[in-house]
């Protein structure tokens, strides 16, 4: 039993899940935004901001509460501040693209510049003001990184390490992805939101407040994406500001949105796949294939998905029809 859990494949799968969790947040957040027609290329920036703010929240809370720091409070604060960090960036983006009708691509890129700068700045600032090293106590670290499930479950063969031996954030992420799929498919607000992304003029004519939906979807989506940055810092990077590791996560999330065809449920296995591809080189070395090449695989498969969907021209697998366009009612 124990043997199987320490086998290469189980370890790889478990690591894939671990590395997939930040992507899952980044992706489902961006799906929400894109479903409303807003292609927010600022995910990278929002994840940086969220990572830094989430770490900061836990760090300063611990400093403030001292030894009596409550792990749950710390997690909640980290979630909240990471969310706020991303939501702040997405709010700027929404104001510029929805209210002021600025170009979405360019605004998203500007947000990436701004957000990575802001994240780096906060991380750097914390490091300097606290004597060169931001560290969180081991107890708190454990709350962030350890599984909420009892040991017995975690010991189960295969499913233990792959499913139960993960931080609470995996399960939050799963809950968000499933809720979002249900929201799109079953609720009226979800229907309205998709209508806004497909055809804002139609939604407008139906009395749906296009502006409000675009703002809400983008801001909440940005917040969710940003949590992914925090999860990366707190579970993979060991609660230390690590801008190197975070670099590229946001772009990978943008790729994953395409890969999973704008469907939150696909994002679940998609993020595991991408997470696996990113760390595959640690586990598997094929002769002739250099390990660095593994890391471009997520982008390569995304390109292939893009090409295949455009080749097939399947109406069900296209981006939201108004993705990237600003809406102005009297413009006709």
């Amino acid at each position, binding site marked *: 039993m124990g043997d199987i859990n320490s086998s290469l494949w189980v370890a790889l799968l478990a690591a894939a899940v671990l590395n997939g969790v930040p992507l899952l947040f980044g992706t489902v957040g961006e799906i929400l935004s894109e479903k409303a027609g807003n*292609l927010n*290329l600022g995910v990278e920036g929002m994840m940086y901001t969220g990572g830094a703010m989430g770490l900061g929240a836990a760090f300063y809370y611990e400093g403030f509460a001292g030894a009596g720091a409550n792990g749950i409070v710390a997690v909640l604060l980290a979630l909240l501040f990471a969310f706020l960090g991303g939501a702040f960036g997405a709010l*700027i983006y929404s*104001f*510029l693209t929805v*209210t*002021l*009708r*600025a*170009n979405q*691509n*360019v*605004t998203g*890129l*500007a*947000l*990436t*510049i*701004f*957000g*990575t*700068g*802001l994240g*780096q*700045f906060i991380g*750097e*600032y914390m490091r*300097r003001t606290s004597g060169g090293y931001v560290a969180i106590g081991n107890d708190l670290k454990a709350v962030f990184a350890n599984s909420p499930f009892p040991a017995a479950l975690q010991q189960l063969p295969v499913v233990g390490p792959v499913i139960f031996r993960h931080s609470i954030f995996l399960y939050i992420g799963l809950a968000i992805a499933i809720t979002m799929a249900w929201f799109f498919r079953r609720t009226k607000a979800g229907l309205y939101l998709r209508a806004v992304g497909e055809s804002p003029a139609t939604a407008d004519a139906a009395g749906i407040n296009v502006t409000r939906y675009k703002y809400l979807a983008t801001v909440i989506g940005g917040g969710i994406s940003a949590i992914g940055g925090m999860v990366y810092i707190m579970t993979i990077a060991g609660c230390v500001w690590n801008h190197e590791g975070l670099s*590229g996560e946001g*772009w*990978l999330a*943008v*790729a994953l949105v*395409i890969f999973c065809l704008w469907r939150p449920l696909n994002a679940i296995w998609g993020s595991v796949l991408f997470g696996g591809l990113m760390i595959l080189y640690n586990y598997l070395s094929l002769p002739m294939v*250099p390990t*660095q*090449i593994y*890391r*471009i695989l997520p*982008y*390569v498969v*995304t*390109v292939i998905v*893009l*090409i295949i969907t*455009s*080749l097939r*021209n399947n109406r069900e697998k296209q*981006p939201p029809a108004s993705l*990237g366009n600003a809406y*102005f009612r*009297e*413009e006709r």
Partner: protein
Amino acid sequence: MREGNTPLVRLAKRDAMPRGQVWAIRVGSFVLAILIGALIFLLLGHSPFQGYATILDGSLGKATVFRQTVRIAVPLLGTALAIAPCFKMRFWNIGAEGQITAGAVGASWLALFCADSIPGPVLLVLMAALGALFGGLWALVPAFFKARWGTNETLFTLMMNYIMIGIVRWLQGGPWEGRPGSQIIPEFADNALLPRVFGVHCGWIIVLVLTVLMFLYMKYTKQGYEIAVVGESENTARYAGMNVAKVVMRTMFLSGALSGLVGFIVVSGADGTLHAEVAAGVGFTAITVAWLAQLNPFAMIAISFLLGVLEKGSDTLQTRMEVPASISDIITGVFLFCMLGCEFFINYRLIFRKGRKEAAIHG
């Protein structure tokens, strides 16, 4: 819901605004960005005046720092020029980052393996040509799929960036690695480095010449005319007998080639070697430069220089005022946001509610 009469503000498209007013709005947005930046300085406990003075002094104050500012602006300007024709064509090429890197790979290959056998000037010309070729071919891939099957170019070009960067990472740790285990590609030989003019590598001359050429290309050539027509309406272009697919692919090749040339300038002029971060976000920032300049090559000079000043100046902030250097990205972001937002007030007219009886309560 309907307590008011008509809403307070509504929008209408503007026909054309007088030039003076346009510039007043642009200057206004600039001032707003400066004020927000000042606020950031205040929040950090620094004097805004001192902050801005440091930025200006640190980027323009001395010949040495001025040269470094120019060095930052050169690739930005070059890449913005590269992107301009694509955007004019409404082809959202956000793959300049990868195209720069591809060009850098092409140039580096010659520099690393042929430097001994080819004399300096010829080598540099060949490096530039190969860099342009690599960048162009790399850009041609998404253009081909766009022209043939309508594959979304925004997402495709974006993905291509990371594929090329990944390839360089592999070169860096594999076939082109210098000392085994170093993960570093060796420095170029001297004859593969761009000569200096006034203390800065001569890339600045190249991009200034390109600025003029691009202006002429867009305005006075048949190809520039075709790009403009395709950008306005593909149907019209077809009606006019243009081969839209050909125009798209040719323009993307040109764009990628210019980005590739920038890659050559960076490796041969600034860095002296190839590494995965050779583009360093320039491909993305240049998009904002091109857009804010409204694709006008001469305006790009000013904007890329402004961003150069902000970046170099913020470096100085770090050393003199102990502010993390990443403040440069924050302030750059603020400037970009303000300038992006201001175009709205140029293109749209706000119509305020007229002083009706119902509305007059609050005066």
